[in-house]
């Protein structure tokens, strides 16, 4: 939109959001409320959680059960939400 008035901070502009969740019990700060499974794993990796992007991500639901979040699946996160990321355990 084209207006003469610059929007003032704190009004129309989206304030940068930070949501702290846990991935494998480690605090991870996410830059947005809406992220994909892959973006959550990437944020965790960048913050030192020992996983890789091939791990399977799950989110803990209100009923205490874990539900898989696919790499391209967008989910809405909330503070203190709990995620687990595990690999398959390959053997030969």
């Amino acid at each position, binding site marked *: 939109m084209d207006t003469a008035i610059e929007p003032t901070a704190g009004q129309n502009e989206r304030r940068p959001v930070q949501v702290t969740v846990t991935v*494998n*019990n*480690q605090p991870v700060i996410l830059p947005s409320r809406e992220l994909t499974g892959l973006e959550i794993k990437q944020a965790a990796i960048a913050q030192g*959680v*020992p*996983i*890789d992007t*091939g*791990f*399977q991500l*799950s989110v803990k639901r209100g009923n205490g059960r*874990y539900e*898989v979040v696919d790499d391209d699946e967008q989910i809405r996160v909330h503070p203190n939400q709990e995620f*687990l*990321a*595990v*690999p*398959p*355990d*390959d*053997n*030969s």
Partner: protein
Amino acid sequence: MARRPVNPPAEGWSLTIPHRLWTELSAHLFPSGGGAVLLAGHAEGARGPRLLAYDLITATNDTDYIPGEYGHRALAPSFVRDAAVRARDESAAYLAVHAHGGLDRVRFSSVDTASHERGYPALRQITGQTVGGLVLTPHAAAGDLWLADGSRTPLAETVIPGGNLLRLRPCPATATPAGPDHDRQARLLGDVGQETLNRLRVAVVGLGGVGSILVEELARLGVGTLVLIDDDTIEATNLPRLVAAGKDDIGLLKTDLAARNAQRANPRIRLIPKATRVEHPEALKELALCDWIFLAADSASARHWVNATVQQFLIPAVQVGVKIPVDSAGYVGQIHTATRIMLPGDGCLWCNRLIDSTQLAIDMHPKAERDAARYVPGVPAPSVITLNTLAAAEALNHFVLAATGLHDDDHDHAAVIHRPRTRQRDLQDPRQDANCRWCTPAGRLGRGDSGSVVQTATL
């Protein structure tokens, strides 16, 4: 099947698997090659930390156990996650298990190791517990443990207390030749069998008529460490039944006499005498560090505490008893001796109605109150050394053959009931209550240090 290697106890981390779980796990892994996770409690041991397996989660082929991304097969991520969540919620160690071909030797492949390095740091963070991998053949086991403190260590041995006391290692132990003293015995037991006895830590609870014989023979067999538990002193009426006791010993602690006899039988023996009742925390602490327990005390409390230790710490035991029914008119009933093998994860003394809860409640009170609570003043029960010998010999032979892997059947652990008046000898299989709070995964089985026996034994 080819004869299995006999491995003396090893120093370092060990895993104990109750024989029923081992049977279930073996059927799942051999020969088809499935995957599974074991959940395990923790305890200290005489030779290093112990993991105590109490439950097995088998992976269903094709859904939980799938073609691998890098390896041949893989535990599916959702299966790994759910097992890890259980380990976290139950404060248990998580051990992923699979099998390799071969028999007496086993080691992880590079794919196995790479998978551990990729995944176990995360599983350790999720569970806050020890996590690791275990690879098995029917005769060998290797483990790679990632400890909660951040370190990583191999598993020294996997112990299966069944009819035989199996010990699996990555490769068979090499024998140290037995000394000339035990040459004749080692001709049966083998040098590794003799070395096994020397490295074992065995407890005798109750040092009266039966216990006295047990101590003498265990020391002469070459058992390396004996824990001796009894708070009683010697009375004149005990002398006919106590090995090498004399009049001067009246008033002496039974632990002192037992220690003297053991020392004379084997000057190199290590002795840990505890002149207390078995439920004393010091005695319980020593019991929990043993490889085997002989229960030769007949009180309900001794039965209860040893039973609890067997199940919570996965330590095999043998209960030895002699029953001589003689009524006030002098009528002699059916005399019998009982030698009951108590295996972790199997029908326990509670399941077999062998602990009287009323008697136990009385036993748990101070001595003066105990005496007052008994309706009939204590008439001494009959006791005869030859009958004690019969029961003790059965228990000792079972122990020697089990420790050196010489029983024909790895899992046969029936009790032996001997009736000398009719010269009958019968085998009796134990029964198990499905939800026993001692001998099933629903109870204290394998929970080790996560709650002491003392705290959890509220009646």
